[in-house]
């Protein structure tokens, strides 16, 4: 099959959605720009016209609310925020409005809105240009949240998000834009709420989001060489998330490590850990480990960034610790 980068796959999804459904349009700060969205929106403005690819004034709140209004009137807008950090100005329309509109009117209207939120970090950008805030939105009942980790899912989840008919936050990480993967030419959907097992294994379950999936795969190779057989689950959707897939895996492995490159406290990993500790407790043979960013704003200076971000080695250490620990525990008294 054909190979596309993650950014190209997104762009193809956008183009096919725009070509196939006149209700679809794109609005947001930077959509005409050569730099805000990498190549993921490149040329759409010329291909589909400025009436359907609408760059906006620097007005995140109104731009998002405009998209909501268009959605209520039957369009299928995709509102683009070039950074999650800037989207914090639009939390009111997203959380108070988009997420509630169906519920407060008793299901008589829906909000077919996709909110594309970009995580754009590293490169000495610092605290206000690096945030990965998926947990803030995962917390909100009326939102669905997806985080594609591969080219295939980047396209398929985008199309699924638009056809879902409800507010879906689509979060992509610029660190993924250059990654390549196979992508079918036709339009297809990746079901929201279904995880993907990227590697089967029997010793430990590693649940990962977004670009941590690739790190998990790398970590698994290292772990294999050390005799540990890891199962890797790419969560893909964080709300709803695939409980069955995670629980089945933990039933098998008895050990769980969750890797999410965002702040730890109240993060995605906290929810999965809490759910497993609540509903699959008997399957656990070891503590649940979270591999997350430290609870620190993003620094700028390169050596600080180096210390701040996480990757495969952090996952490897987290997994190994569970096994070392188990050996120690076995050497000591058995558990109550």
């Amino acid at each position: 099959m054909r190979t596309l980068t993650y950014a190209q796959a997104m762009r193809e999804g956008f183009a096919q959605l725009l070509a196939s459904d006149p209700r679809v349009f794109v609005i947001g700060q930077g959509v005409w720009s050569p730099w805000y969205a990498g190549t993921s929106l490149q040329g759409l403005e010329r291909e589909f016209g400025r009436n359907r690819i609408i760059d906006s004034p620097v007005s995140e709140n109104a731009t998002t609310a405009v998209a909501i209004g268009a959605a209520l009137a039957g369009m299928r807008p995709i509102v683009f925020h070039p950074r999650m950090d800037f989207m914090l100005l639009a939390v009111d329309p997203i959380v108070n409005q988009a997420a509630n509109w169906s519920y407060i009117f008793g299901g008589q209207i829906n909000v077919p809105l996709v909110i594309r939120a970009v995580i754009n970090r590293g490169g000495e950008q610092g605290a206000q240009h690096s945030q990965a805030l998926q947990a803030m939105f995962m917390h909100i009942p009326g939102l669905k949240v997806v985080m594609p980790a591969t080219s295939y899912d980047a396209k398929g989840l985008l199309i699924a998000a638009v056809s879902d008919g409800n507010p879906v936050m689509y979060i992509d990480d610029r660190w993924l834009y250059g990654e390549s993967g196979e992508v079918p030419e036709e339009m297809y959907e990746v079901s929201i709420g279904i995880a993907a097992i990227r590697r089967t294994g029997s010793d430990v379950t590693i649940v990962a989001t977004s670009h941590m999936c690739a790190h998990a795969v790398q970590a698994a190779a290292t772990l294999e060489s050390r005799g540990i057989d890891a199962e890797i689950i790419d969560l893909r959707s964080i709300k709803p998330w695939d409980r069955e897939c995670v629980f089945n895996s933990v039933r098998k492995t008895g050990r769980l490590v969750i890797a999410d490159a965002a702040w730890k406290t109240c993060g995605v990993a906290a929810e999965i850990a809490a759910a497993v500790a609540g509903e699959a407790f008997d399957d656990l043979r070891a503590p649940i480990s979270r591999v997350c960013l430290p609870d620190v704003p993003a620094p700028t200076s390169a050596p600080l960034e180096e210390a701040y971000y996480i990757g495969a080695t952090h996952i490897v250490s987290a997994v190994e610790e569970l096994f070392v620990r188990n050996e120690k525990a076995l050497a000591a008294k058995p558990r109550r």
Partner: protein
Amino acid sequence: MLPSHSAEDSNAQAVIDPSLLPALFRSMTLIRMTEETVADLLDENEIRCPTHLCTGQEAVAAGVCAALRKDDYIFGGHRSHGHYLAKGGDLRALMAELYGKATGCSRGRGGSMHLFAREVGLLGTVPLVAATIPIAVGSALASKMRGDARVSVAFFGDGATEEGHFHEAVNFAGLHRLPVLFVCENNLYSSHMPIRERRVKDNISRAGDMHGIPGLRVDGNDVAVVYRTAVDAVRRARSGRGPTLLECRTYRWRGHVGSSMDLDVGVKRKDELQEWLPKDPVARARAGLLDQGMHKRALDEIESEVRAEIEDAVQFARNSAYPNPDELREHIFCLKES
């Protein structure tokens, strides 16, 4: 005192087709009587949701909505019974919603602050101040894209113009020349705060000018003026000439929330009310109809018809069932397309 009725931009003697006035009177009477009935029901603790009554402001909703087509979109805020009714929303469903019943216009999930009547173009009223201003711009954008010639209206208060997204929304609408009316009901208060304590100049209509669209100030207690001005603005919008901002000067008789009169709030409130009561928009329309030669009996008849409708609606609401608590988790997402 704030300058009121001073620098209105529209002809205070607006002449409209006399045959339209009875319908406008009826619309205002329906709003007035509903609001006053709801006030009683609040006092009796029959209705318990937070309720913001628009008694005294009826001419704005009635005048603007009369200038609209049924399929035009409107949006409102926390004080939107009038908008709902003027646009043709079902009275029974409104009353049932206030009672929290499953037959309510929002199926008992919304109460007074969240009203819905898609069949007449009301896509929602929500109580976050100013929230629906850019949302109405969005439905106008949809209309422009589809070329469906619909007009969108955002109803909001003077307080809403203090939210930054009001300005963002007006700028965006002007930039894209969208078919939208910004209708500000300037009742001179934002809850307990008179306008002079919240902005330097009493110049809300100038926000239109600042953002490149016409901004007009009109007497919001004269339904004919409001109607006439709205007709022009709607025509502009529908023919692709872009948005208009209408500042309608008015005054709410009741307190900010509930049935109280808030006479304790703000130094001038009592005096102001005395000044505004004689400007009663419903009484003015009634007087106008009598002047036009309409019989008092015909007016009385309208009033008793409306009264009967309201009584029926209250009965309907009382007799309706509450939502089933087992359905608490429903409606967060729509499964089917709407």
